[in-house]
């Protein structure tokens, strides 16, 4: 079954890239959020298998969303991937402390992302049967 994935990034090109990368061959179903506020709306009403968040966004940043998901009952089993770039090194480190399951540095390749999600979700699939 396709994974439910949420991509939160203020860049529409990155969102489109992630969507096309993951929706290929029905690997995942992808929803998009352009802002932290939009992500909050979705996180309040949906459970996701994977949430991919850009660290550096205006208003609500990726770290704040990670902290929110950590506390949100709905997102307890969710795999959290934080996207960053080399310049956000410090921010990425904080993300790891806030419970990000993986850090993904931009630019990344299609296969890199799919492989990362596979490796993160397989053990989960075994646990939950």
């Amino acid at each position, binding site marked *: 079954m396709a994974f439910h994935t949420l991509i939160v990034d203020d*860049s529409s*090109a990155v969102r489109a890239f992630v969507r096309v990368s993951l929706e290929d061959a029905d690997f995942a179903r992808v929803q998009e959020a352009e802002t932290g506020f939009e992500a909050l709306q979705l996180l*309040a009403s949906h459970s996701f298998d994977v949430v991919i968040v850009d660290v550096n966004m205006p208003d609500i940043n990726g*770290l704040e969303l990670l902290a929110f998901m950590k506390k949100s009952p709905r997102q307890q089993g969710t795999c959290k991937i934080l996207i960053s770039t080399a310049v956000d090194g410090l921010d990425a480190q904080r993300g790891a402390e806030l419970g990000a399951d993986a850090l993904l540095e931009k630019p990344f390749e299609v296969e890199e992302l799919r492989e990362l999600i596979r490796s993160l979700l397989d053990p989960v699939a075994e646990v*939950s049967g």
Partner: protein
Amino acid sequence: MSDPRDNVQQEFLAEAQELVEALSRDLLLLDEAHQRGERVDSALVNEIFRSVHTLKGIAGMFGYKHVGTIAHALEDLLDDLRLGRTIVGDPLLDVLFDSVERFQRLLALEDPQAPEEKSGVDAYVAAVRSIGAQPATEDGDPLEQYAIGSAVLSVLTEYEEHRLRACIREGMKLYRLRATFDLAAIDDSIETLRDVIHDDAEIITYLPSLEGGNDESIELVVLLASHVPEAELKAYFEGRYGTIEVIEERAPLPTNPPNPTLIPPDTRSELPPSDDDWGQASLRSLANSVRVDIRKLDDLMNVVGELALVRGAVSRVVESFAADPKHRQSLQELDRVGRGFERQLSELRMRILDVRMVPLGQVFSKFARIVRQAAREHDKQVRLVVTGANTEMDKLIVEELADPLMHLVRNAIDHGIEPVDARMRLAKPAEGTLALNAYHKGSNVVIEVEDDGCGMNAHKLRETAVARGLLTAEAGHDLTRQDMLNLVFLPGFSTNTSVTDMSGRGVGMDVVKTNILRMGGVVSIASEHGIGTKITVTLPITLAIIRALIVTVGSRPFALPIAAVREAVPYSPKDVRSIQGRKVVTMRGETLPICDLARLFGLQPRGRQAGRFVIVCAMGTRELGFVVDELVGQEDVITKSLGKTLSSVRGFAGAADLGDQRLALVLDAPALFTEYFEGAGAQLGAETHA
């Protein structure tokens, strides 16, 4: 179906373009503030950083290596700037302004990895790197003096933390505003909050909390820094938005223990089942806009044209029943419905047109950069004053306008505005003014490029034209002052013998005029010697609909864009003379070459020669009369492309539906002029090809 990756590529290019345009606009604001000696707006610097940062991220993912390299170098520089490690100055502004053009050029490349670009990119990166960061002044961490809480500090990005420190150093007080927002309308509420806070405070960040929130609402802790006294803020926010409290200074640092009510992370299977009503929940997007390829709008407009044809066909069927009295009542009803349909159709047409409209500010913002650069190169002081940047017109025209306007702006700085010392001698202000004004006038947009420079010497223009053989001395003698000014539009005319970097690029005012004409516009010139020059460009708001004169030739309809038409006069075959193999008539003492369209298109002209018309068209300073059979009238028509197979046929700009199931070919006046005068320039007297 198209490869989704192509669409993603388009998405990338569109976003990259938007980012570069935003960068360009923001740099102008930064430059203006710097020139006025104002303090750097941190939000603006952050915006600039974000544009470059995002551009770098996406360029890497889409294989735009050079764009990525430049963005990367700038990102470091801008990061230093926003974190206070470097300052705004001319060297910094120069490399930033330079980047805009580089990005635009690199994004337009066929091969985004082109190896021949590498040396230029490397040199640019070296220039960026040479603007080194200065070590930040270390005076202890002011954050440690505040009871912000580690839970909050742990979710701040490095930049937000830096802003907090900067605000504290500027003597602002820190506040925590707790407010609950309705999730469905959170975007509007935040917008309102931002408006309210506006200049009174800086919003550092919004922290979502779970306390006080549920599926419908959420509590946010808004971290603010402000100079406004606590009591004032309290009076405003309390009760209206929630509670506001000042974050006290010099309090012991409390450590928030992790929330003990957390659900352990391995209880996934016990959670409510994941939603299968995926599409049903409210997924209202916060960004209420979509990007659309303008060709899709053209397609829509074509459908509107088809609908108009269907409507016409229905009317004719209805008419065929009109003779029968027993249908009278039904026909009246049908007529009423038909008129309603037409109203809706024209409404639809207007709305599609509206979608194509973009503000002219998009192109004006490019000029500010040019003005800045040009003025510096020429040691002139130029102030750019823009009015009407919000005036909207068709996206395609705005794109096409960039080059002609650029030329006019460069001309104004290069030839118009005098150097500072010359202006001082003339008792003019040292700083010259270049005004770009745009406004709507009927269904046209008027754009003025006005400078308070040296103006044009009309008589000198005439001398130059005669000296260059563009005009005989006798012909020059009869010219009015306005005619003399218009000489600058002649091909091959240039008053300045020295070729400069700025405008001496082999394209003159004649090219500007031709380009404007091609868009169905007109350009005029007003100039006072010693006072200044104003070039006025008038263009239709859209090219999708043009005002055309409908004529018939050999009983077929043709449309002539009204912008090119000067007048229509009755044709009298007996006045036609032949000069060097070309037919001419004499009009008000002037010789007018004529072209019989029936002959040109190989059509059989209407039998009777009398009663035909000559449509006098003007392009630049040339006039040509087209002989047609009948004048039908003026109409707003939608020009459709002739398609690939017919695109090589010269002389036609496209086809237009006339609404009665007849299709008119739209004549391409500039192409017909070229066709007619090509190779014959020398014989036509005054004008020669340069």
